[in-house]
């Protein structure tokens, strides 16, 4: 299905169109990251409807738009967004592969201090894996960590 020309259309309206017209895509990819040594590993799960938007193209704004809004929100005197128009008026991004969509999602939803330095330190603090590579039960869920013996070479293999 061809995406309508959505430039200048409110992002919420684009999402409404997508919900009505696109088939949700359940990705098998998971992003595991460690935000703090005192907390268990966190696991990012893509939303199936969002994945459909990313792979369709012409719906989602570029990821830098979210980074600009995050900068605004980080200001100490922040009360409300005044640059929300960036979400709606910026040219939407083109269709992505599933892998490109996951990379976009990492930059959007994983804290920047994680993905910008994922491989600094003794071991990677972020790993992209398949759902079946996670433990099959949630037993001891609150103690899950990224394996100590994993390294960037393993991840590239």
């Amino acid at each position, binding site marked *: 299905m061809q995406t309508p020309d959505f430039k200048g259309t409110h992002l*919420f309206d684009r999402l409404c169109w997508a919900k009505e017209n696109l088939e949700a895509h359940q990705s098998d990819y998971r992003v595991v990251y460690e935000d703090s040594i005192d*907390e*268990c590993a966190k696991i990012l*799960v893509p*939303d199936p409807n969002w994945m459909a938007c990313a792979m369709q193209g012409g719906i989602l704004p570029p990821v830098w738009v979210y980074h600009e809004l995050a900068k605004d929100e980080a200001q100490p005197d922040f009360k*409300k967004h005044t640059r*929300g128009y960036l979400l709606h008026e910026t040219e939407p991004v083109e269709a992505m592969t599933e892998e490109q969509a996951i990379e976009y999602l990492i930059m959007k939803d994983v804290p920047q201090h994680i993905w910008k330095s994922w491989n600094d330190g003794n071991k990677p603090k972020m790993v992209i894996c398949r759902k079946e590579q996670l433990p099959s039960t949630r037993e001891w869920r609150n103690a899950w960590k990224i394996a100590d013996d994993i390294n960037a070479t393993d991840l590239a293999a």
Partner: protein
Amino acid sequence: MAGTIVADTLTHSTAGSVTTDYVVNGSAKAWGRYSHNDAAFDDSFNFSSAVDQGTGDARLTFSSAMVNDDFSCTATASNNSARICVFNEPSTTTVDIEAFGTTFANTDLAQGVTINGDLA
């Protein structure tokens, strides 16, 4: 866009009128049914991801951001062993949801979430 109706007021033949502000401002801006057991959405709208943060604890991220972090979040749980559902640490792009069971410990349940407020 085809199929667009532009109107500030809706008028019923006998029951009176309502401005479309009520419709726009009163509509949910995001909703989802999230299963802590599967760490996945069963269905949703206006979320880009869920982050499983541990047992009965998840962070949901919006696709279309809210204008501020003063929005309303209604959370429920679809299991009669649930005692408390809470939301906390809201930002304009995320909300954390937690489910607690009979022992008041975090518990993996299916949770329903609805967000009302103003979009950015």
